[in-house]
């Protein structure tokens, strides 16, 4: 810029345009993070407004896609007069139970295989083989085994959760810096202290990644399990509504599934921020 300042006449015109450009660029850069954050929420909100307008204007048949306001009214009605809260609770309970069982199994197996070459030789190949089966493919078999009751649904969720937790726990333990394990020997740490002070914290980022994956598969497993032969729960609500062509109820359950998915992801992210505060990729500072 300073070079151009010193040149004369005609080039000053060119400089003026360059400046104009620069100012534009500056203004674009001046959008603060808060504005961007607001925009990121405004955009989907705008979509909902357009959806509402199209539905109110009669461009969308209520049988195909009811208006958001209609869905809200349905939600209110089902909450006050119907069983929405009960169904939601049942679904959450199934997801939580399945997640706890599958997560515990995956974590313990992951610890065993991560720490012991012997356990790896004994267990890992079998787990990898079972993992290769898409877990929804075993659905008919699970129904034969367990019927279509609670056990089947919890089992499916647990099955979907086990593998991501297992794999990421094993991976996390394997990825702990061998130099830090050597340090533990130098500092005279007991095997237990080595695990507690070095291996588990070192594996934690990977384990939490597994938790996030597992939350997604848990939710997917639950939707499928509840769609088939449930007597209560969100999936049952949707299938029941299908019988009566209640598109508003069906869309409502989809929206609730989505909201809970987002909530689960937020919880996982919050956990990462809390537990990985030391990590440059996650932490929000000290």
């Amino acid at each position, binding site marked *: 810029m300073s070079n151009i300042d010193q040149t004369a006449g005609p080039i000053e015109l060119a400089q003026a345009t360059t400046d104009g450009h620069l100012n534009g660029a500056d203004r674009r850069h001046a959008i603060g993070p808060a504005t961007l954050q607001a925009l990121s929420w405004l955009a989907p909100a705008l979509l909902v407004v357009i959806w509402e307008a199209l539905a109110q204007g009669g461009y969308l048949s209520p049988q195909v896609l009811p208006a958001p306001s209609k869905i809200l009214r349905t939600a209110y009605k089902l909450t006050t007069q119907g069983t929405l809260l009960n169904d939601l609770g049942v679904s959450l309970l199934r997801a939580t139970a399945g997640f706890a069982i599958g997560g515990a199994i995956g974590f313990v197996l992951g610890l065993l295989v991560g720490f012991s070459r012997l356990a790896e030789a004994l267990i890992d190949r079998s787990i990898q083989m079972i993992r290769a089966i898409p877990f929804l493919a075993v659905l008919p078999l699970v129904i034969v085994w367990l019927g279509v009751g609670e056990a089947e649904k919890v089992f499916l969720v647990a099955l979907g959760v086990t593998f991501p937790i297992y794999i990421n726990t094993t991976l996390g333990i394997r990825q702990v810096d061998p130099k830090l394990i*050597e340090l533990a020997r130098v500092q005279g740490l007991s095997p237990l202290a080595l695990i507690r002070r070095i291996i588990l*914290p070192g594996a934690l980022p990977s384990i939490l990644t597994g938790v996030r994956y597992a939350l997604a598969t848990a939710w997917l497993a639950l939707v499928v399990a509840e769609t088939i032969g449930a007597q209560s729960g969100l999936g049952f609500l949707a299938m029941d509504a299908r019988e009566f062509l209640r598109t508003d109820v069906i869309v409502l359950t989809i929206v609730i599934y989505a909201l809970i998915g987002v909530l689960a992801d937020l919880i996982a992210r919050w956990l990462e921020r809390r537990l990985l505060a*030391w*990590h440059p990729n996650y932490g929000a500072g000290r």
Partner: protein
Amino acid sequence: MSVHEAAAAQRPADPAVIVNGLRRAYGDRTVIQGLDLRIERGEFVALLGESGCGKTTLLRALAGLDPIQGGRIIVPKRPAVVFQEHRLLPWDSLWRNVALGLDGPDARARAAAALAEVGLGDRLDDWPRNLSGGQAQRVALARALVQQPQLLLLDEPFAALDALTRIRMHALVRELVATHRPGVLLVTHDVDEAIALADRILVMRGGRIAFAHRAHRDGLVARGDLLAELGVLAAHAPA
């Protein structure tokens, strides 16, 4: 056997390390063969040598990190080691890093005292990632010294630091060693660092100690001798 053995024998017997006939091999490749070494408590020994001559291998054997294939090593139960990398746990605060391996309710107080000694007494609860390279290496020093080791093994701990920071670290290490008086073995590439810090300088070649030099002679002559031993200069040429 070698010069330094004779020299060490004149001192009061309070050894931090005794090594006899050490052999260390990786598979068929012998790295150390018939090595003898003795370091007294409070003595600062620097070990020079070309890359791959077995300096670090010797240090790791003394630290008990690698198995040996022959000979005898007598070291205190838990030698402290400072590595080339700081090896701080990124998920622990500085004081918890320094207290790693300490037991008892006074662990924090002892860690705090050690951090104060290296000039970081006001950073107890800070994270390692907020430290510069020199500061991180000071924490690693504190972590080693808080164990009150009889033997301190330094594996090129200043190699990755810039020149000014290195000089400051030299002063700090001299001071700390004078206070705590462990036996020190410093593995380094840097002849001037060895001269600046050590009471005795050893040159390793062909898997054994090939040359020993007692410090406090004329630095220039020493430097020339050492560089000649390292194959950098013709023998006894002034530096």
